[in-house]
């Protein structure tokens, strides 16, 4: 597996972390009603979307490099 393929695995793991963080922050907000948790939750959602955009950019940029 090349660095390109491993980076795609990494992007997927990072996206999963962002999704988990969003759920965690929303749960904390439901428990504590603290605005900082709500900000954290929406930031995690934003980060998740940003990771998807980056993933698309990465695949385009490294089109010519092979996966193995």
């Amino acid at each position, binding site marked *: *597996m*090349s*660095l*390109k393929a*491993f*980076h795609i*695995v*990494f992007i997927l*793991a*990072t996206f999963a*972390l962002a999704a*988990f*963080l969003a759920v*965690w922050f929303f749960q904390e907000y439901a*428990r*504590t009603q*603290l605005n*900082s948790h709500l900000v*954290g939750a929406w930031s995690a959602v934003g980060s998740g979307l940003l990771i998807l955009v*980056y993933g698309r950019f*990465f695949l385009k*940029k*490294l089109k010519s*490099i092979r996966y*193995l």
Partner: protein
Amino acid sequence: MEIPYTVKERKDTGLYNAKLGIWLFLASEVMLFGALFSAYILLRVGATPGTWPHGLLNVPLGTLNTIVLIISSVTVVMAWASLKMKQFGKWRMYQGATLVCALIFLVIKSFEYNDKLTHYEVISKVGDKYQVHDGHLISEDKDKVVLEPSAHRIYTSRAIALGFGPVAEVAHGKADHDPKAHADHAPAKHELVTIQRSTIERMQNYAPKHHAYLAIYFTLTGLHALHVIGGALVMGYLFGPGAKMWKTDPERFTNRIEVSGLFWHFVDLVWIFLFPILYLL
């Protein structure tokens, strides 16, 4: 004698030697970290219900460190891609950025460690009565110790044996954390506590020996930090004296950058798992 397959791929594996080597090494690393993750899970599920510490770690700092490592993974892959596109100048910029990220990560981690190592539990005895104080050390001299009480604490087995701590709270139905108490990570503003040294029976900081949680926390994060240091040293060498190879054997140099990048991605991936397990769950 020339070393074979440093650039060309072997027919049997389809990989050049260094890439095969790093993947074998990473497989052994998976076993190492896998064993420690398993130890953490077993310690946690084996703990008395309600007694496993929560909210002890600084989530904003942990999140910041996670972001720093994610950025470093992007720069490390961009560094490799730059060399693939024969852009040595861009490689230097991305490789330098990766090294800066590694340094930032280690500095933040050292602040977190310092926070734990200056956090004390003090057991004092006045007459027949024991008291357990917990907080960050503000000052100490030969007569007294001054602590700033902390919102989050872990009792030692000695304090629990004296009837303090979460086991007693479980028995009295107080173990469920008050949401307000854990609502924000910043400790509540308390008045400083002064303890006379002559009354102190035991004083212990939040080092690994304090509690199983801290032992596994320091083991996992310490081992991870050692990997960050190791990776940074290799990348630092490639950034400095090792970069000469670009002029003599650019393809082999590019492969070296790829191999160091694979290791760095593994280190970052370990953190992606460590962060939620230690800081959030």
